[in-house]
C-alpha cells in the first residue's frame, strides 16, 4: 500500500518535472526568439525619420511629449521582436497616416509637391533665357545699324586696373 503511494507520488513528481521542462523549453524558445534590448541609438535611428503627431515638424527622437515617449517605447519593442526599419515605418504610417514621415510618398495629390517647384523653376529659367536671347539679338541688331551705345564701364574697376598696370 505504502509502495503504491510512493509510486504515485514519484509519478506525479516526474510528470510535474516533465511538464516543467516542456514549459521551460517553450519559454526559452520564446525568449531566444527575441533580440537583445535595442540601444537608444538603434531606437533613435528610426525615430529620427518619424515626426511627432502633436508638435509641427519635430522629429520623434528629440520630441519631449508623452505621445512621442510612448512611440519610442513602441519602436524599441518592435525592434526587440525583430521588425525591420521599413516594417516599423510602415506600421506608423498605417496607424497614424503619412504625416508621420518627413516627406510625403509620391502618390496621388502628393506628386504635386515634387513636380510643381521644378516646373516653375524651369519655366522661370526658360523665360529668362528667352529674355536674354531677345536682348542680345536686339542689341546686336542695334550694333549692326551703327547705333550701338557703349555700355558704361565700371569706372572704379577701370581706375583700379589702370593703377595696377602702372604698378607693374
Amino acid at each position, binding site marked *: 500500500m505504502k509502495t503504491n503511494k510512493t509510486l504515485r507520488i514519484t509519478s506525479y513528481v516526474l510528470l510535474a518535472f516533465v511538464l516543467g521542462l516542456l514549459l521551460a523549453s517553450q519559454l526559452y524558445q520564446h525568449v531566444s526568439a527575441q533580440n537583445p534590448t535595442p540601444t537608444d541609438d538603434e531606437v533613435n535611428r528610426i525615430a529620427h525619420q518619424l515626426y511627432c503627431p502633436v508638435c509641427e515638424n519635430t*522629429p520623434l527622437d*528629440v520630441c519631449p511629449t508623452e505621445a512621442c515617449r510612448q512611440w519610442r517605447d513602441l519602436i524599441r519593442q518592435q525592434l526587440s521582436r525583430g521588425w525591420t526599419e521599413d516594417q516599423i515605418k510602415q506600421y506608423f504610417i498605417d496607424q497614424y497616416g503619412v504625416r508621420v514621415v518627413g516627406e510625403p510618398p509620391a502618390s496621388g495629390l*502628393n506628386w504635386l*509637391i515634387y513636380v510643381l*517647384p521644378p516646373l516653375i523653376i524651369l519655366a*522661370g*529659367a526658360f523665360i529668362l533665357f528667352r529674355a*536674354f536671347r531677345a536682348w542680345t539679338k536686339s542689341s546686336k541688331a542695334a550694333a549692326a545699324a551703327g547705333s550701338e551705345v557703349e555700355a*558704361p564701364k565700371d569706372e572704379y574697376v577701370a581706375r583700379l586696373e589702370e593703377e595696377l598696370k602702372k604698378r607693374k
Partner: protein
Amino acid sequence: MLAEIGYGILVVAFFVALYSVGAAIYGDRKKSAAIVESARRAMLLLWPLITLSAACLIYLLVTNHFEVSFVYEVTSRSMPTYLKVTAWWGGQAGSLVFWSWLMSAFASLVTLRTWTRDREFLPWVIVVTSITTAFFIGLAVFYENPFAFMWFDKSGQVIKAMFQPVGSIPVPPPADGNGLNPLLRHPGMIIHPPMLYLGFVSFVIPYAFALAALITGRTDDRWIRITRRWTLVAWLFLSAGLVLGSRWAYDVLGWGGFWGWDPVEIAALMPWLTGTAFLHSVMIQEKRGMLKHWNMILIILTYALVIFGTFLTRSGVLSSVHAFAQSAIGPAFFAFIGVTFITSIALVIYRWPELRGETEMKSMLSREALFLLNNLLFMSVLVVCFWGVIFPLISELVTGQKITVGPPFYLRATGPLFAGLMFLMGIAPLSAWGHSTITTLGRALWKSAAAALVITVVLFFTYTKNAIALTGFFLIAFVLLVTLVEFWRATLARMKTQNENFLLALWTLVGRNRRRYGGYVIHVSMMLMAIGILGINVFQIDTQKSLSQGESISIGDYTLRFNDLKQFPNMVNGQEERYVNRAEISLFENGKLLTTLYPRYDVYPDGQPMTLPGLYSTLKGDVYVILVNWESSSASLAPFKVFINPLVNWLWIGSILFIFGILIAAWPERETELVTARSRRAHQTSAAD
C-alpha cells in the same frame, strides 16, 4: 481703468490712421499741400498715441493686473520685471500692438525727411504706411484686444471682452497668471522677435515708395535711391532676427541643431529671400536702368511675404487649416494680403509701358546677366519654401489628410540652388557691367579656381571623402579666394599710388567704396556661415545612453563621464520659479580632461520644461550634451544625448561678420551715389544725342 484708457487710445489711434489715409488721398487729388500736411501730422501723431497705449499695457503687465486676460495669459508673479515687459510681444494680442508701434515709428521717421525733391511721393507714402498701421491696430482693436477682461457667460464659460457682455458676470481677478512660455524667456528669444519685426516693418518703407512711384507715374529710379538704405536696414534686422532665432533654437530647443525647416522659420526666411534678390536687382536698375518691372514685383512680393509671414504665425493656420477659419484674425489677414497684392500688381500692369528698361542686355556673362541668374535662384528657393509650407494646407483642404514636409525635402530641393548661388557669388564680382566674355572671365578666375581645387584635393586626402562636402568646400574656397584677392589687389594699388601702409590703404579703400566692399564682406561672411551649415548637416554625429554615476559614454574622439546630478528649486521672491535638474559631466578628448559641462533642464510650475545643453565650443566644432528631459533621471541614473557638431561655430562667426558687412554697406556714401546717378544720366544724354 487703465485698461480702458489704453484701449481708448488704441481706438483713437485707429481713427487717426484712417484720417491720415483719407486726408492724404484727398489732399493729393485737390493738390492741397495743407491737407497733405494735415495727413502727415496725423501720421506723426500715431507713434505717441500707440506709445501711450503700450505704456498702459506694460504697466498692467508689470503690476500683475491678472483681471486683464492678456496679462493673465503671459505673466505670473514669479517672473522678473524685465520679462514682464518683454511679454508685451510674447503673446499674440500684445505683439500686434508692438507691430503697430514699430510701424508708426518707422513711418514717422520717413516722413520727417526733407521732401523737397520728391514731394509728390509724400501723400502716397503716408497712405501705404498708414493703411498698414491701421490694419494692425484694427486687429488689436476688433479681434485680439490686449486690454480685454475675462467674463463668465450664461453657460459659465470664460469669455474675453472689453465691456461686460449682456448676462455675463466678471471673473474674479486670479491670484496669479499663467506666465510666459519658458522657451520664450531666453535672451535670444527676447531680442529675436523685435529684430524680425523691425526687419518686417522697415521693408514696408521701400514698398510704400514703390507704390508711390507707380501711382504718381514717377517711375525712374528715384524711389530706389531714397529707399536703398531703408532696404539695407530692413535686411540687417531681418538677417539679425533669423540668426538670433537660430541661436535660440540651438541653445534652448535641445535637438542639437539651429534650423529645422519649420514653417515658422520659413515664414521669416521668405521675405529675406525676396529682399536679398531685390538688393541685388536694384543695382542693375541704378547702374543700367534695366529691370524696372522686376524690381517693382520683387518689393511687392517682399511686402506680401512680410504680411504673409505674420499671418502664418499668428492665424493658427499652420496647426490646422481649419484653425485658420476659426481664428478671428486669419480671414482678416487673408483679405488684407489679397487686396494689397492685387492692387499693387494692378498698378504695375497699369504702368507697364513706362517701366521699360533704358538699355538692353548685351552679354549673358555680364554682371547684370549674372545678377539676374542670382535672382532666378533666389526665386527658386522661394518657390520651394512657399510650396513646402503651403502644400500641407492644400493637402488637408483637398484630401482631409495631414502631411509633413520636413527637412529631407527642403535639403534636397534647396541644396543645389544654394550651391548655384555660391558659384555666382564667386564669378559675378569679376564680371563687368555691360559686357563680359568667357575669356575675360576665365582669365580673371582661373587662379582662384585652381587654388580652390588644390584645397579640395587636400581636404579629400585629409578630412573627408563625402562628395557633397567636397563640392561645398570647393565653392567656399573659390568664393573666399576670389573675394580676398579682390581686396588684396585693390589695397596693393592704393598702397602704391597713395603711399599708404596696408591697414590704412585697406581702411580707406573700404571707406570710399562702402557698398562694394561691404557687399564683399557679406560674401565672405556667407561663406563662413556655409562652413558651419555644411559641417552640421554633413558631419553631425550623435549618441544617447542612460548613465549611472561614474559611467562614461564615448563618441568620436570624446569621452563623457557622468559625475553627479543636482535637483533643486530656484526661488524668486520667495516663490519657486522653476525646478532645476543639473548634471555634471567631465569631458575628455583622447583621455585628456578638457572641461566640465553642466547640461540641465528646468521644469516650470505649469509643467513646461526648458532644456539647456552643456556646450564645449571650439573652431573645430561643438560637443553638445543634453540631459534628456523626456526620460526620468536621478543622481544614480540619468539619460544623456550627445551631439558632435563639427565646424558649427563658423556659422556664428560668419553671422557677426555678416552684420558688420551690412553696416559697412549701409553707411552713408553720398558722393558715390550722386556720381553714379550723374554718370548714368550723362551717359544716357550722350546716347540720346
